[in-house]
């Protein structure tokens, strides 16, 4: 299934799912599960709840797939759904989420192919867990999920300028936190 669709963009796969083959939705889930679990975990910091959030998000996305505008980026759309679901969980439990030790999700992307980069990434992830969500989320999206400013703006529903400001402030906050560590 993946072989036939690997050259297709997300939006093209979604179009096929909507038109004639719902089974192809598995391709979308395969493509995004790792990234979305990592993202959900960065927000909720609870493995089981992150899994639930991601699964619920996939179901919600499937139900509303006809409402997705294929001229827009599917990735921003699905990230937004996960963001909404995660925020619901955070509000529901009214809690400061606990810190994690050594938990990570495998990713299909081989973006960390050198040790220094891996080391920096690990340090960044550690510091990210210690700064407020307001700042950690845009940083996570920018440097861990490698989203553009425009995509972050779409996912968080904030203007581009606000994205830039939050990332800039987040770097300063993070610098202080990392230096303490």
């Amino acid at each position, binding site marked *: 299934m993946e072989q036939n669709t690997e050259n297709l963009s997300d939006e093209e796969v979604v179009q096929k799912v909507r038109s004639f083959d719902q089974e192809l939705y598995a391709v979308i889930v395969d493509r995004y599960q790792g990234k979305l679990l990592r993202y959900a975990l960065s927000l909720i910091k609870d493995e089981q709840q992150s899994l639930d959030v991601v699964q619920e998000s996939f179901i919600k996305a499937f139900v509303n797939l006809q*409402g997705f505008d294929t001229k827009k980026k599917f990735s921003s759309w699905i990230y937004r759904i996960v963001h909404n679901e995660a925020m619901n969980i955070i509000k529901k439990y009214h809690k400061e989420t606990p810190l994690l030790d050594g938990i990570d999700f495998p990713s299909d992307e081989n973006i960390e192919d050198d040790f220094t980069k891996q080391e920096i990434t690990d340090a960044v992830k550690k510091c990210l867990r210690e700064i407020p969500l307001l700042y950690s989320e845009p940083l996570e999206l920018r440097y861990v999920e490698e989203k553009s400013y425009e995509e972050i703006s779409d996912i968080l529903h904030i203007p581009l300028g606000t994205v830039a400001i939050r990332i800039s402030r987040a770097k300063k906050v993070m610098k202080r936190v990392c230096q303490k560590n």
Partner: protein
Amino acid sequence: MSEELKSVTRNVMERIHHEKITMRPRIYFIFGSVLTFIGLTASILTSVFLFSLLRFSLRSHGPMGAYRWEQLVSNFPWWALFVALFGLILGIWLLRRYEFSYKMNFRVIALGFILAIIATGFVLDMTGLSDVLSRQGPMKGIMRPSSSDDMFRPGSSFGGFYNK
């Protein structure tokens, strides 16, 4: 955890099959958009109407402002205000429900909405449409002065007296 990760696809697809989860039809979203449009349009029109009426009434009162204000409050079609509020709330609710994952800053939308109402109300008032509405159409009944007001009108016995 990696085992659970692998099972996400299986779990999602199984739920879709076993719980018979289906995609909402396209018409559902079209209907939602139409409802949103109707709700917002109705609330804008109603709000503009009310704002224009209010401003017109206050402006035309002159020194009897307090008395006229009481009269306006007693004659005011409050149901229309509730319709406007209901339309606004329904419109935003629908927008959130149907476009839940697209970027929309609802604070900006609400602020823009209010500013648009005020601006349109001023324009309607300045162009004299309020006066036209007050003499004909649905506004006629609302804006018709009571018999006690007639005496202050130029040409009436009282008004005529003051005009002399």
